[in-house]
């Protein structure tokens, strides 16, 4: 009976007070950052209908979602993502509001296959979405918020790689490929598997110039010169527009003063079910996974009945914290400044002690009142064991004396 009562399910974890404290500090920093860009927070339910996430085949693989049923037998899921619910919310609830909508969220997601953040199945993401704008300025704004989020968290060394799925789509169009075939190439390019691309192109008799461009994609990252090089060889207007778009967004990011954090990777081709234009990922040292990812997803809102261009990003808070600790960036620690002690047999001292504690708290000091120490010596030992800075002994005549915490 109750064999598992001592355990948490795999991938689900307690976040202990000293871990939760720095986590909240980071979340607060991100919250103020997002607000400073005039993005406002929204909450969507942790539980949604499965249909929200699988409105299109392949949008969210069903084997990644936690499921249950409601009273009427409809399938419910724990949200694997917040972008899709935010888009649903905007499509169904914001009808008459002027665009664009600038929304952010900080919340927990649930996935069976979560690779990042130590493979947790429950994990926290913070992210921002910009709905109803299709300008390169909109893409640049979201990327600049992402870069500033890394800085706000305390990271100094990081890189944001920008790609554009349109270039790849243009090549596939030119080669006359469709559906599953495109997905095969996408995975190979995204894995930088040049041999695989060559083999596949050989078998399927792809045009020589397209094959050359495809095999060059995986190695085209780093400097912006790659864009100019591809621009001169682009076979159609879809490809050219994608490259011009990426140059424009990078130009705007230079004006933001973020140029040094930006790099290009045309071979980065994330899910085409989702992304439609500029995509990006953020990296730092000490962690083998991208810390944040995002991009333009103009087709998503249409699934919910409203045509609306959009872009956004999300970052993993748990992963951010592992990266920070591996880079030895100090995480915030809880600190109690005062322990107030009074003689528990003296009602007058007690009243004065509570008043003093209240004053200190109002002045912004974290203050604990001693609730069990028999004498000031006990209080000092207790203060030392908890890392409390100073002990205040309150006397019945209204005076008080300071004592150092000691062992």
């Amino acid at each position, binding site marked *: 009976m109750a064999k598992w009562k001592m355990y948490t399910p795999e991938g689900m974890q307690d976040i202990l007070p000293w871990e939760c404290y720095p986590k909240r500090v980071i979340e607060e920093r991100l919250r103020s950052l997002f607000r400073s860009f005039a993005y406002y927070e929204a909450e969507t339910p942790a539980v949604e209908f499965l249909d929200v996430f699988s409105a299109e085949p392949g949008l969210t693989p069903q084997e990644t979602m936690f499921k249950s049923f409601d009273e009427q037998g409809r399938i419910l899921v724990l949200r694997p993502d917040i972008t899709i619910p935010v888009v649903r919310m905007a499509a169904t609830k914001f009808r008459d509001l002027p665009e664009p909508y600038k929304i952010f969220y900080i919340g927990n997601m649930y996935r069976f296959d979560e690779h990042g953040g130590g493979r947790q199945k429950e994990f926290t993401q913070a992210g921002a979405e910009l709905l109803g704008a299709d300008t390169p300025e909109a893409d640049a704004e979201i990327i600049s918020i992402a870069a500033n989020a890394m800085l706000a968290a305390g990271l100094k060394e990081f890189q944001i790689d920008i790609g554009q799925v349109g270039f790849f789509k243009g090549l596939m169009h030119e080669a006359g490929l469709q559906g599953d075939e495109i997905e095969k190439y996408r995975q190979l390019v995204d894995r*930088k598997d040049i041999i695989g691309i060559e083999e596949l192109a050989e078998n399927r008799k792809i045009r020589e110039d397209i094959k050359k461009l495809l095999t060059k994609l995986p190695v085209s990252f780093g400097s912006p010169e790659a864009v100019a090089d591809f621009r001169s060889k682009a076979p159609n207007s879809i490809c050219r527009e994608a490259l011009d778009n990426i140059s424009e967004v990078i130009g705007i990011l230079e004006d933001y003063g973020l140029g040094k954090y930006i790099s290009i990777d045309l071979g980065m081709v994330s899910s085409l079910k989702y992304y439609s234009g500029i995509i990006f990922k953020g990296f730092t040292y000490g962690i*083998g996974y*991208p810390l944040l990812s995002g991009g333009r997803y103009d087709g998503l809102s249409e699934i919910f009945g409203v045509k609306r261009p959009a872009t956004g990003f999300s970052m993993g808070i748990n992963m951010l914290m592992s990266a920070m600790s591996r880079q030895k960036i100090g995480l915030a620690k809880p600190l109690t400044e005062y322990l107030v002690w009074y003689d528990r047999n003296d009602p007058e001292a007690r009243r004065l002690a509570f008043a003093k504690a209240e004053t200190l708290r109002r002045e912004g000091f974290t203050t604990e009142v001693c609730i069990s120490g028999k004498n000031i010596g006990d209080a000092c030992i207790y203060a030392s064991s908890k890392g409390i800075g100073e002990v205040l002994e309150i006397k019945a005549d209204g005076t008080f004396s300071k004592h150092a915490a000691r062992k």
Partner: protein
Amino acid sequence: MTRYINIALAKGRLAELSAGLFRDIGIFCGDVDDDSRKLIISDEENKVRLFLVKPGDVPVYVEYGAADIGIAGRDTLLEEGRNVYEVLDLGFGACRMVLAGPGAIKDSFSLMSNKRVATKYPRIAREYFDHKMKESVEIIKLSGSVELAPLTGLSDVIVDIVESGKTLKENGLEVFETIASISARMIVNRVSMKMESDRINKIIADIRQMLAERNKTAG
């Protein structure tokens, strides 16, 4: 301070060949000795560290970023299905992943309804039957001597790697279909490729060039 580039090599038949690649491009690896108790060999001058792990663990180390670069057989990569960059075909360790079974059932195999498949590669076998054959089969995971399974009635067929096909033949088994061609591959962690792109790209370029020269002299 320069960070170390960490390289994970697969223990066993690929270890010496893999280490040789790095030695040939001027990254000193010392003696890579399977029996050595020392787990990590480092080259202080180039700031490179090298360690040997079980073949199946190479893509795991690389995906998590504990190793920046790894060398492992494509069989291992397919079986592990990890999210890494697969940047170079090193050519050595070449063989094939095949579906094989007793010659007697070759023609009737597709008509069998409850196929039992013995393999050391359950994921590869499952994906092959899921996606290519579009059917569910019973996968029996074994740790070795897979050829024995159809002979003893444990399974109908096997999914395994073959080099010459001699072992299969000696045991009365035939290749039904080739699932994939296998050779040693160099893989790179997705973040390392970006954060250490100069040094890692140099290693890749040097090895690529060295392989091309080797091929020229061989050919």
